[in-house]
């Protein structure tokens, strides 16, 4: 005789496992990412900003690119801290999607008694602030970068460096290789948008180079992905009447 009861039980267990697999939350790499602006997802292997990673931007337009990367998490509720970059264009930050209510601008050299410098300030911010943006003039020693990146992986913050793409520790480097403004003529028009081509370099899952064309900044300051060349009317200068 078959022991039908036991077989039924075994079958139920198998079924349960199948269901469990289906309903288990997808806690993979995506779980450990922060959302990006939809336009930028194609540049990142996970389609999001992996927590604990160091992103660097370079080329003409590196600042706008850094702001665009930071804008995704900020819009989703994260705080942003800007360290050592007092000349950052705050209006541009707001236009690219950063939420100014959740933004701190920190001058790491203000304290006379503190010798911690930028690395110390970033270390203090990691964990409490999701996105830390470090300005182009800030130097962080390689030993400090190693210590920082270990701390960041543990706490899940992201560091964005403007213009330090070739330094050690960078997980994803975004380089603007071509850039061309539209909208401004000779004696007429107005800066309207900048067509850029961005190429990535990096380690691990980001090692495969990616490249794509964008408007950065787009006509309203926000980044726009260009699958194919943008329709001409999008790029027409608004103030043609000035000419």
């Amino acid at each position: 005789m078959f022991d039908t009861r036991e077989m039924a039980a075994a079958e139920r267990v198998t079924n349960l496992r199948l269901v469990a697999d289906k309903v288990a939350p997808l806690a993979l790499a995506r779980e450990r990412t922060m959302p990006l602006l939809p336009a930028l997802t194609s540049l990142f292997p996970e389609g999001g900003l992996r927590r604990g990673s160091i992103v660097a931007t370079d080329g003409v337009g590196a600042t706008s690119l850094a702001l665009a990367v930071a804008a995704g998490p900020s819009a989703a509720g994260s705080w942003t801290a800007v360290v050592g970059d007092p000349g950052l264009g705050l209006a541009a930050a707001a236009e690219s999607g950063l939420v100014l209510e959740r933004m701190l601008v920190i001058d790491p050299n203000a304290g006379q008694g503190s010798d911690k410098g930028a690395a110390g300030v970033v270390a203090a911010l990691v964990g409490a602030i999701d996105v830390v943006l470090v300005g182009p003039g800030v130097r962080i020693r390689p030993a400090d970068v190693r210590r920082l990146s270990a701390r960041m992986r543990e706490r899940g913050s992201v560091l964005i460096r403007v213009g330090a793409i070739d330094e050690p520790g960078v997980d994803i480097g975004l380089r603007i290789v071509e850039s061309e403004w539209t909208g401004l003529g000779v004696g007429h028009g107005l800066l309207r948008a900048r067509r850029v081509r961005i190429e990535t370099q990096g380690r691990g899952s980001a090692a495969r180079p990616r490249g794509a064309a964008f408007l950065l900044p787009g006509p309203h300051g926000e980044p726009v992905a260009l699958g194919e060349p943008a329709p001409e009317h999008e790029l027409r200068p608004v103030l043609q009447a000035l000419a």
Partner: protein
Amino acid sequence: MAPVRTLVAWCPDWPVVALGRELHESVAVIFANRVIAASPAARQHGVARGLRRRVAQSRCADLDVIERDEAREARSFEPVLAALDDITPRVEVTRPGTCAIAMRGPSRYFGGDEAVADLVRQRMGEALAGRTEIRVGIADGPFAAGLAARAARPTRIIEEGTSPGFLAPMSISVLERPELTDVLVRLGLRSLGSFADLPPADVLARFGDEGRGAHRLASGLEERPPDARLAPPDWSISTEIDPPADRIDRVAFCARTLADDLHQRLEHDGISCVRIAIEAETEYGETLLRLWRHEGALSAAAIADRVRWQLDGWLNGSAATRPSGGIARVTLVPDEIVPAKGRQLGFWGGETEVDERAARVAARLQGQLGADAVMVPERRGGRHPDEQLVLVPAATVELRGRSADERAVDGEVPPWPGQLPAPSPSRVPAKPHAVELTDAAGEMVTVTGRGLASAPPVALVIRGRTVPISGWAGPWPVDERWWDTDDHRRRARFQILTEDGQARLVTLEHGQWWVTALWD
């Protein structure tokens, strides 16, 4: 059970007095852009609590606006409290400028409420030396006593058992719970008495825990029923400082650790502390005990602040009251505890845990680097990129649930004609650098009074390097604040695109060209 008979002594306008200002000057003390206290002279001009800075200034032209300094308020209140030390050792600081004493012992010892009130007024008066007046109220429970002090000219004693009658005609707004009282007023309940007449069970059912507390206060009872208070096991926690510290920052550092420990223990047991006793002892056995109350629950940082304020006032006080040695021991005793209701932090919008953490790290960095090192952006109006948004110290604003838009008037943002449209430049250097803009003949391009360029610009000379121009537009002249000789600015702006792909905003002012912004 009747509430504890309490004396409340109140120094009006303390935030102004503590800053060392005279009451006949027009002074307003502000925090997070709102007036929190004003001198009588300023109040005569209509400067009231809660006004925005700009509105307050518009009501009183010679108004002196000063940022709040809570530490200084507490520190300068300490000598006033010390004057009460031989009346009772347990003085509760409700907030700087207001203190409370439990009356049972002193009243018997000195022969009645009136005698104690006179003594308190006399002692505090000596310590204040006429800087402000003192009002004293005695009633059943700290709430009624506080209101009695506000109504006092200069002393008001509400006889035992008559506090509910005293409270009944008062406006409902004295509860200082704006959200609750707003609803109550709309229900037609304008006085404490009419609110107290409601059955407690109905109030609890409709307004929950907060409503019940307010209802109990309005009825002349303690805010929380006595049985809700937990019998405190020994929660006190203390630390020895060896060698004894005579510098305030060392004591504060130890206190901070202690406060963190205490807070963790309380949190672990689901308790929060609304009144704490801080006791400091010197190496020669002198002690200073103060009770501190907080309407919300005292956080670790708030406890550490209070330790600092209390000891600062003691260690750096006058020679007569200063201790003879360093601080050797600090003890924290949670004196009144309530079950932690636990603030539910918002998931989306409102106050979130993320905001809480960010506010904490901002406060820590301010401590390390100085208050001006941590800034937050705020929108202002303006035509130039560096005027549209400015950085203000994070210490002067409330980080949680803040609006960066101070321009909005009734929800509408006024327009700034002449602003450059988006995209905005991503770099706005604090110090613009001087450049030259030249035409085909190598001459400097000028702009006429009618806003016309002398010749099309052909090259931009930056630090001696000549870069050919591939695109340009302008000039867009701006003539700002021409009615004000000091602030008058005349500028002409160009957008310049050079052949290296860089776009810049180049401005002509006083015959000199400047790069004022960059699109990087």
